[in-house]
């Protein structure tokens, strides 16, 4: 992450960032494909059966990384938005915009896989539990951001209005989380376990981490690809765009 940040600070001008992003996209795409392929292989064929949940638990190898990404991407978007508002950098606003669909996708994936897991494990497709409810609200927040961006024609206004919404949302997420937690919860407090020590077998943990890294690479590749499109669309009148080989061809 840190090296990416440094790069983006350095290449904060769209004209220099565009070709750089172009070089990075295939690299991250290949990493994503390899990691996700390995991760899926591990999760379906290598990881041992859980002693309690049997085979059904394997969905967590998609579910948990997706849930991580859904929250993390929102934070990253809010970070870009704050950066854009403070330093008035166009590129960071574009990054926030480029990440939104991926974040929404992962949120949806987390909710969907969660439902499939919840039915056999908990005994219900959906419970109005803190995690689930706040994840659902997170999905609404993503949708709100995307809709607001779509409704505003002027890109500058769209960027800044979206940024404010993201920041308001990021303040609200902990509040939302704690409020739903108090309100109704499946997992609160007095849950008791006979075993307090070991948490997860190494193979399972490694598999999950590989999947998470794969999702990371996928998110970066897709976001960079999308930001390239956004740059082209917004800078279509700038001189350097006209000189690009793919535009001239």
């Amino acid at each position: 992450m840190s090296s990416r940040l440094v790069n983006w600070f350095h290449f904060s001008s769209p004209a220099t960032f565009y070709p750089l992003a172009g070089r990075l996209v295939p690299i991250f795409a290949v990493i994503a494909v390899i990691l996700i392929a390995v991760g899926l292989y591990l999760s379906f064929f290598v990881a041992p059966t859980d002693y309690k949940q049997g085979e059904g638990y394997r969905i967590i190898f998609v579910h948990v990384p997706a849930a991580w990404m859904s929250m993390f991407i929102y934070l990253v978007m809010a970070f870009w938005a704050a950066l854009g508002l403070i330093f008035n950098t166009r590129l960071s606003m574009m990054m926030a915009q480029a990440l939104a669909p991926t974040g929404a996708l992962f949120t949806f994936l987390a909710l969907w896989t969660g439902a499939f897991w919840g039915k056999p494990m908990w005994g219900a497709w959906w419970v109005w539990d803190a995690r689930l409810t706040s994840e659902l609200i997170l999905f609404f927040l993503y949708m709100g951001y995307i809709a607001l961006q779509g409704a505003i024609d002027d890109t500058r206004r769209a960027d800044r209005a979206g940024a404010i919404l993201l920041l308001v949302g990021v303040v609200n997420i902990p509040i939302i989380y704690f409020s739903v937690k108090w309100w109704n919860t499946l997992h609160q407090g007095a849950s008791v376990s006979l075993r307090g020590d070991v948490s997860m077998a190494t193979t399972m943990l490694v598999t999950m981490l590989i999947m998470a890294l794969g999702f990371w690479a996928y998110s970066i590749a897709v976001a960079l690809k999308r930001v390239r499109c956004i740059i082209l669309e917004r800078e279509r009148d700038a001189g350097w765009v006209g000189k690009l080989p793919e535009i001239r061809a």
Partner: protein
Amino acid sequence: MKARHKRLAYLAVGLAVLAAAAVLVFQALGNNMSYFFSPTEVVEGKAPRDHVIRIGGLVKPGTLQRGQELTATFVVTDNAHDVTVRYTGILPDLFAEGQGAIAQGRLNADGVFIADEVLAKHDENYMPPEVAEALEKGHQQGKAQMSGDQP
């Protein structure tokens, strides 16, 4: 400089209001705000009688009795007090004696909890069966541990 004083005044007022909000949150934390109760709280009569509540704890080993037509009776414990739960329906896969469970329903006049829904508590402990067996053996001495883990 007047403008700066004014800005400082606004800042002070804002911070004071935020501090007041924090105080209120701490006040709120001192109150029970959820309908989730432990068996101890139920036995002590802290749970409302005529309201849907949730109770959670461990399913006491050896207490699960399956009656007719999917009716199951079991005891939920927090190792201090016990509450008997009656439930009619299909228990989830993860439901087992010695495991955490959460039941939603009402207390009847005899202090038996009539559940509308039973959910198995899952935790973040995933492991292959062999490891689990080994662990179970290690715990045969019956040193039950309580830990507030989050999924």
